[in-house]
């Protein structure tokens, strides 16, 4: 029996459910992001991002997504949003910046979309 017979992955449009499949894929990336809870780690990263990627064993896809600060690519590479938020924090990107980037809107447009949800 193939492993895929036990595929628990759920498909929801516009959503990557962070499950075992994603957890396996993104472990190194998420571990790096988890380290950013510490100020010293954030400082070390900013001094030499490439060395920091290697320290945590990121693969090429993950490194490129980090260089590009591309949130959808980071998620596709196995990133978990709670940890990615710490990466985004280094660049002073808040959750509206992150939302705007992923939906192809300006930040103001994205905030308006949120406001309209209350109508």
């Amino acid at each position, binding site marked *: 029996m193939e492993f895929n017979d036990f595929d*628990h992955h759920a498909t929801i*449009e516009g959503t990557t459910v962070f*499950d075992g499949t994603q957890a396996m894929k993104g472990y190194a990336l998420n571990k790096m992001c988890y380290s950013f*809870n510490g100020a010293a780690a954030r400082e070390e990263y900013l001094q030499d991002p490439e060395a920091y990627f290697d320290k945590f064993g990121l693969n090429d896809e993950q490194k490129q997504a980090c260089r590009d600060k591309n949130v959808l690519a980071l998620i596709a590479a196995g990133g978990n949003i709670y940890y990615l*938020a710490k990466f985004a924090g280094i660049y002073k990107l808040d959750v509206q910046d992150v939302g705007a980037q*992923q939906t192809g809107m300006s930040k103001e447009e994205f905030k308006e979309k949120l406001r309209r*949800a*209350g109508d």
Partner: protein
Amino acid sequence: MAKIIGGLTSSHIPAVGNAVHNKLFDDPYWKPFFDGYPAIQDWLNEHKPDVAINIYNDHGLGFFLDKMPTFAIGAAHQYVNEDEGWGIPQLDPFPGDAPFSWHIIESMVAQEFDITSCQELAVDHGFVVPMQLFWPGAPHNPDLPRTIPISANTVQHPIPTLGRALNFGRALRKAILSWPQDIKVVVLGTGGLSHQLDGERAGFINKEFDQYCMEKIVSDPDALTKISRHELVEKAGAQGTEFLMWMMMRGALGDKVKAVHSNYHIPISNTGAGTMLLEPVES
């Protein structure tokens, strides 16, 4: 014996931590949200609970994906709020109640909820923001209760089912009520309501579903257990799964409750924010 005098719900959005720090209570964006709290603060001031059991979900401070407990219970003498990496002001430690924690842990495992006990646990915005909202100035509010954090996993699937969360709360109720000290306990369910931070669907908020959840959490929480986890992600958004904390809180209040206070506002940050005060009704 210990008594459960109420259940409190609140969103725990990080931006609220900054808004509290900057005292934006009358700011037009924040006012409709903060206006949901004074009535509950007054109630707390009147009833002065001794212990607050704060059910929240860690967001990558206390736990990493190397070891991810489905249900974790704090058993520390104090809980430290640490740097989360994005510039929320850090607060001083919150006092715990370790003997009561261990009683709850013993009781939960005896009731076959196999939890993770934590003698050290760094608590993030999910824990501290509601404490700040309900006890202004926390942790330096003179009426601040001792706290016991309980964290449920919503970071990584599989997450618990809504039925399991409700039953966890029901077991927690037995654990609390069997504690021999004459103390008053409130149970907090923090997080939610609908929101999604990640993916092309980022910014998803579902007012209708949130209002359904706020109604049923009072009148018929068992009806909510029919919602599958897949459906919860679909209808509440990927991070709206934090509603599980509300289910755990609700289970601890017993069969019948009345809603004493309720507030709902869209948006705060990317989220539909729900605030409630529930009182158990003796049957």
